[in-house]
């Protein structure tokens, strides 16, 4: 089965071709019986579901096989001297888990989008882009070399741009698309340099060959690996929305909600985490860089959570929470808990896609209103959306024992706590930031739940208009809700004697080498049963306190929130203005950039390039032409004379000399 892995990419691409060239035609042809989005959405969904079935078959084949790792080569792509790049896929537990997430969650989101986009004329275009995204993301996770990774990396960036700006006639959406693309380019620049450095050092771009060379070395690559990991991480900062390049993600909410769920929560933004986990051997050999990565992740997690506390746009709350959760994942891979990072990626994909789609369901029912100050009391109007959102919110807050978010987040926090190198104190600091963020997470998540679904309706007109959505939208919510609970049991803490299938079983072979390196360096302390129970309890208490706090502030005594906001005054305003980071970038980067562009345009371009080079070459040619024009007397006799003289000279030359 594994040799048919290319089918997973081929199916969505077929969907792209059909919807791109025949989408509108088919929609028109079937318009009597079906809505527009149902025709193209059917094609889009079926292709991704087929892709999921192939992925699942590969998963079943790999199940129970130790060290399952296959390279499936299709053909040579680039061959220049010693430089070889093949179109070739690496199928191992890590890429299979990504494959399942992308196609599985992707299928549900495609199906949901059939209902969500039913008022939109551009559904053919929408499903074309969405399928193209799935194919691109699969290229990213399946490639067995850095070139393929980079191709996928850029393709998902393009799809993200196209889909954020899907409603391009809205200037805010068009701007958000550009912002996402340009901010990502900064990260991609570092990422590309990292890949160049890998090639110039190891002479190959194949993961396995690079890891093999690194593994066989004895420290001679240490400084190169530091640089490579830094540069690759710069790419991850952009793609996974970490400080300081996170600014694009909140604005990306301008796109349709299924896009936010698929690209900006479940899949594309986790590419950075996947990339670091894929290169776990390199990152494990760069402990100092990894420490920086862990701190960037932890600080991002905290920072984004504070912004989520005050946001009023439901989708933006979820966007900040995505940044925050990505911070957790980056923290995990930074402290060397690669499997824990992937596990959180896995569970987060379910509950965050669920939350986004439930929020989209609200938005769809409320004529596009997403400001929580106008929602409220929707619990009874939209029971299915309410219950699924509640399950997703519980998972995000880490509601103890029964939700996936609890187990995966706790896994990360325990690993951070265990960190010993270079100093135990760093581990404690990271853990503390993580646990405070967990408190904030529980609070802002249930703030959103209470403001949206509980209390009195704040806008009576909108409330009366609200209705539960169609089955095509609610069914995917329920499926994701099941996974938001069930997925957690794949990674229970092994220290309590419970099976951690994902870390000790499924992903073990991928992480074995880095595991050995870290063990050798005494990277982690191994805490005992009692301390593990204590940490779990702390997480549980923190989540419950956060949820209770939200209930206390937003349901029992709503006045507290208002008073606190007034009391905090300017600080509240600062957080509400997103710490004015956008304005900071505007003043210090964008405006100087514009100034520089102005100087270059007006002085260098207009004076030097236009006047000297362009006009100069034209003028010199014209001057030369004037000299040559003297020969052109206009008298035919002169021309004939030249011809005759020429003939005579030629005759003399050939016959007489």
């Amino acid at each position: 089965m594994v040799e048919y892995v290319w089918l997973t990419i081929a199916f969505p691409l077929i969907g792209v071709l059909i919807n791109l060239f025949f989408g509108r035609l088919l929609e028109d042809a079937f318009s009597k019986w079906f809505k527009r989005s149902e025709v193209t959405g059917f094609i889009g969904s079926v292709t991704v579901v087929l892709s999921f079935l192939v992925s699942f078959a590969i998963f079943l084949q790999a199940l129970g096989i130790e060290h399952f790792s296959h390279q499936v080569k299709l053909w040579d792509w680039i061959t220049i001297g010693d430089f070889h790049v093949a179109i070739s896929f690496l199928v191992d537990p890590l890429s299979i888990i990504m494959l399942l997430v992308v196609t599985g969650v992707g299928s549900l989101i495609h199906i949901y989008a059939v209902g969500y986009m039913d008022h939109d004329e551009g559904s053919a275009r929408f499903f074309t882009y969405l399928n193209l995204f799935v194919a691109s993301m699969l290229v990213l996770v399946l490639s067995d070399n850095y070139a393929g990774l980079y191709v996928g990396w850029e393709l998902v960036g393009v799809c993200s741009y196209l889909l954020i700006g899907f409603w391009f006639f809205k200037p805010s959406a068009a701007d958000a698309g550009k912002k996402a693309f340009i901010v990502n380019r900064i990260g991609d620049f570092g990422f590309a340099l990292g890949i160049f450095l890998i090639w110039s050092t190891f002479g190959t771009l194949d993961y396995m060959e690079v890891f093999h060379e690194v593994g066989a070395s004895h420290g001679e690559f240490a400084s190169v690996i530091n640089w490579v990991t830094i540069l690759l991480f710069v790419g991850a900062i952009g793609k996974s929305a970490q400080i300081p390049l996170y600014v694009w993600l909140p604005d990306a909410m301008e796109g349709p909600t299924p896009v936010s769920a698929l690209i900006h929560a479940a899949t594309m933004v986790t590419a950075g985490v996947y990339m670091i986990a894929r290169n776990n051997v390199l990152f494990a050999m760069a402990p100092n860089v990894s420490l920086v990565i862990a701190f960037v992740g932890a600080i991002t997690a905290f920072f984004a959570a504070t912004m989520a506390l005050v946001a009023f746009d439901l989708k933006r709350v979820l966007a900040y929470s995505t940044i925050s959760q990505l911070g957790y994942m980056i923290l995990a891979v930074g402290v060397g808990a690669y499997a824990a990072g992937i596990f959180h990626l896995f569970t987060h994909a379910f509950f965050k896609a669920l939350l986004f789609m439930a929020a989209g369901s609200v938005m769809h029912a409320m004529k596009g209103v997403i400001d929580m100050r106008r929602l409220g009391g929707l619990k009874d109007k939209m029971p299915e959306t309410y219950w699924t959102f509640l399950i997703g919110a519980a998972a995000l807050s880490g509601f103890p024992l029964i939700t996936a978010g609890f187990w995966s987040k706790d896994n990360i926090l325990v690993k951070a706590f265990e960190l010993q190198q270079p100093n135990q104190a760093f581990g404690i600091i990271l853990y503390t930031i993580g646990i405070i963020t967990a408190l904030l997470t529980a609070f802002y998540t249930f703030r959103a739940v209470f403001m949206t679904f509980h209390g009195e309706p704040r806008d009576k007109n909108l409330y009366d208009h609200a209705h539960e959505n169609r089955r095509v939208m609610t069914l995917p919510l329920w499926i994701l809700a099941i996974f938001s609970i069930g997925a957690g049991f794949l990674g229970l803490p092994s220290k309590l004697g419970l099976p951690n299938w994902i870390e000790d079983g499924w992903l073990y072979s991928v992480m074995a080498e880095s595991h050995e390196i870290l063990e050798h360096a005494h990277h982690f302390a191994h805490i005992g049963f009692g301390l593990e129970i204590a940490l779990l309890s702390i997480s549980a208490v923190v989540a419950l306190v956060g949820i209770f706090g939200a209930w206390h502030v937003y349901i029992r005594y709503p006045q507290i929130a208002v008073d606190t906001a007034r009391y905090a005054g300017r600080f509240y305003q600062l957080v509400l203005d997103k710490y004015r980071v956008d304005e900071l970038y505007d003043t210090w980067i964008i405006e100087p950039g514009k100034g520089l562009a102005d100087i270059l345009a007006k002085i260098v371009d207009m004076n030097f390039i236009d006047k000297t080079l362009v006009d100069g070459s034209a003028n010199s040619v014209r001057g030369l032409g004037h000299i040559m024009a003297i020969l052109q007397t206009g008298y035919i006799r002169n021309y004939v004379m030249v011809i005759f003289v020429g003939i005579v000279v030629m005759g003399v030359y050939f016959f007489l000399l």
Partner: protein
Amino acid sequence: MEHIPTTWYLLLAAILFSIGAGGVLIRRNTLVIFMCVEMMMNAANLTFVAFAREFGSTTGQVFVFMVMTVAAVEVAIGLAILVELYRHVKSVNIDSFDSLKG
């Protein structure tokens, strides 16, 4: 009738050719220049025929028919151009057609 040597034909052809060439170079009337060109062409024809007789071959004579046909065509086009030129410039003086002067 006495046999005329080929050299004489060639000399005659050379003279005719030179007269034609001189006419092309010094005359200003476009029609006359045109006729001079024809004369040069017929001088060439004469050499063809002379050599054809000398070597007892018909190739040269066939070539002359070819040249005459092409000349007829050329005259038709040339005169048409000339008429058009006259309509524009109201002159057949070759020096008045100098719009290509640089």
